[in-house]
């Protein structure tokens, strides 16, 4: 039997309240402040670098995001990859369980709305907060870049940077959905925060290394390749498959494809693929997006999957404390 009315009744109201709450919360203001500071620092370092190699690069502006060769550790995206999950987790880890703990949940759910509206509104409210923060940050970096080097970015550069912005928001969505899931699963906000942060540490730092170890166990390197100083294709493919289970790896690959237009493939390149290619020649934006498309879809799919799990659990949960 169909339920009465729309599941989206009250969705906008919940979303706007969450947005207002987040934008005025100390937690968010501090995180945003830190990210802004990092943006200033990294753009400054990148601009110093750019000034020394000015003639060489047709995609000068993208260097502000990706950093240059020697300064990779100080690049903006390195920090962004770290801080975006942190911001998303910071906004999401207590969204549902804090309503339980404040005894507001049963009162809110006794209003004429469905639970769907509450959970989805919370997700959209936090995602919109992150989107606003990231758009501001993005404009900030571009503005700083203009100030530091005084050369306006080309259309292609802006387009690439914009797609990069969208992907970053999607990446934030993954961690937000994960934090939201744990805020549904765990009644204690501290547990939810620690478990989510633990998973983030694991997937961002441990898993990329661990995937190599696991790949070698299941697909030992072939001595014939090793003798030639080459990696065994099977091992590399398995290692890459495992590493790509982590959203951080997926995001990293998309960023490489978008911000470095010369990227022709993410993963092992076969000689046949290089036939007729002009090495070092940039690809058009469409081709770069196409290279990273599976990764982009992977990020979106992970977000949806995590949200759906949280949604199902929340629908079946008892309201009473």
């Amino acid at each position, binding site marked *: 039997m169909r*339920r009465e009315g729309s599941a989206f009744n009250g969705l906008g*109201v919940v979303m706007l309240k969450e947005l207002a*709450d987040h934008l005025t919360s100390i937690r968010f203001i501090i995180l945003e402040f830190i990210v802004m500071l990092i943006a200033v620092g990294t753009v400054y370092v990148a601009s110093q670098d750019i000034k020394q190699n000015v003639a060489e690069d047709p995609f000068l502006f993208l260097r502000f995001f990706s950093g240059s060769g020697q300064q990779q550790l100080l690049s903006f995206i390195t920090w962004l990859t770290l801080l975006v999950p942190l911001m998303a987790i910071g906004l999401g880890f207590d969204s549902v369980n804090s309503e339980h703990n404040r005894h*507001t949940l049963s*009162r809110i759910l*006794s209003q*004429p709305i*469905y639970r769907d509206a509450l959970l989805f509104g919370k997700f959209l409210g936090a995602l919109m907060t992150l989107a606003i923060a990231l758009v501001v940050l993005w404009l900030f970096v571009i503005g700083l870049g203009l100030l530091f080097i005084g050369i306006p970015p080309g259309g292609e550069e802006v387009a690439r940077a914009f797609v990069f912005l969208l992907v970053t928001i999607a990446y934030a969505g993954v961690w937000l959905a994960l934090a939201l899931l744990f805020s549904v699963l765990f009644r204690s906000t501290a547990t939810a925060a620690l478990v989510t942060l633990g998973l983030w540490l694991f997937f961002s730092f441990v898993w990329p290394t661990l995937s190599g170890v696991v790949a070698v166990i299941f697909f030992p390197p072939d001595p014939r390749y090793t003798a030639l100083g080459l990696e065994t294709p099977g091992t590399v493919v398995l290692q890459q498959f495992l590493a790509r289970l982590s959203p951080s790896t997926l995001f990293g690959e998309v960023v490489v494809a978008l911000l470095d237009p010369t990227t022709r493939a993410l993963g092992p390149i076969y000689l046949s693929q290089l036939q007729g290619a002009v090495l070092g020649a940039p690809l058009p934006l469409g081709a770069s997006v196409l290279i990273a498309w599976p990764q982009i879809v992977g990020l979106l799919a992970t977000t949806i999957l995590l949200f759906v799990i949280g949604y199902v659990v929340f629908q079946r949960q008892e309201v009473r404390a």
Partner: protein
Amino acid sequence: MNADTVIEAQGLTKSYGRKVAVDHISFTVGRGEIFGLLGPNGAGKTTTILMLLGLTDISDGEVNVLGFNPAREPLSVKRRIGYLPDTVGFYDQLTAADNLRYTARLIGFRSVDREKRIAEALDRAGLGEFADHRVGTFSRGMRQRLGLAEILMKGAQIAILDEPTSGLDPHATAELLGIIRHFKAEGVSVLLSSHLLERVQSVCDRVALFSAGRIALIGTVSELGREVLGAGYVVDIEADGAGLPDRLALIPGVSRIEQTGIGKLRLHAERDVRPEAAAEVVALHGRLKYLGVQEPSLEAIYTHYFEKKPDETLKEGARHAA
């Protein structure tokens, strides 16, 4: 469903796996009636309330709230019911008015209507001057009153109050009960659960005693008193007149008369014999100084009932649930 019935439950059941939290209960609540749900913790009162609101699945049975089925039409039900949960919570960082504004938006009131309703509700709950204070600074009593203000603002036809008076000081309790009586005066039905039996007695028209997921007894307090305490009516009379005790003893239904003081008599009867007793005094040309019937105390009923042997309680429960 009768036009004057707002809630009708038939064999309502909730089970978690093999554990039965609410076991085939049936009751009705009339328009403008204050109905009390009483019973020890874990007896199934809150679960019953959540089923009425459509906030938890119904395992078995039928329930009808204002002509709607809460399991199928939860939005229609929730639009017409105000709910004050046990230990109600608000967003501490928001002001009282902002908290109500959020609820009003969720209900879907238009902005002009909204502000008027909020101001009116806060005034009626005695929180008018605290409208722009943050709820974080509120005492428990004020939070409860804000919860009632929310129900007032909603213009609910039924107010469901879960333990509204627990943890409140006597003054705050009295204020709260005052607001609850206002609900009744406006034709709003009130369903309330409470442990403060004496207070419940003073406001409830009818009560249901819960025991282990069943309604053990249901009715007005005096009905329950006779049923559980078996006392019948106790009428106190203070009057003079020669031979009055003998005349009173002849009234049909009076089983016993005792002298409780000079000119004071206590009649034990199986029905309310006040009219006949008054007529007797008048017939003897005596002066009637006091005539009253003792209401049985809910506390005595409750204690007496739950002190019975468990299996006996169960049997009673089965009889009344049937």
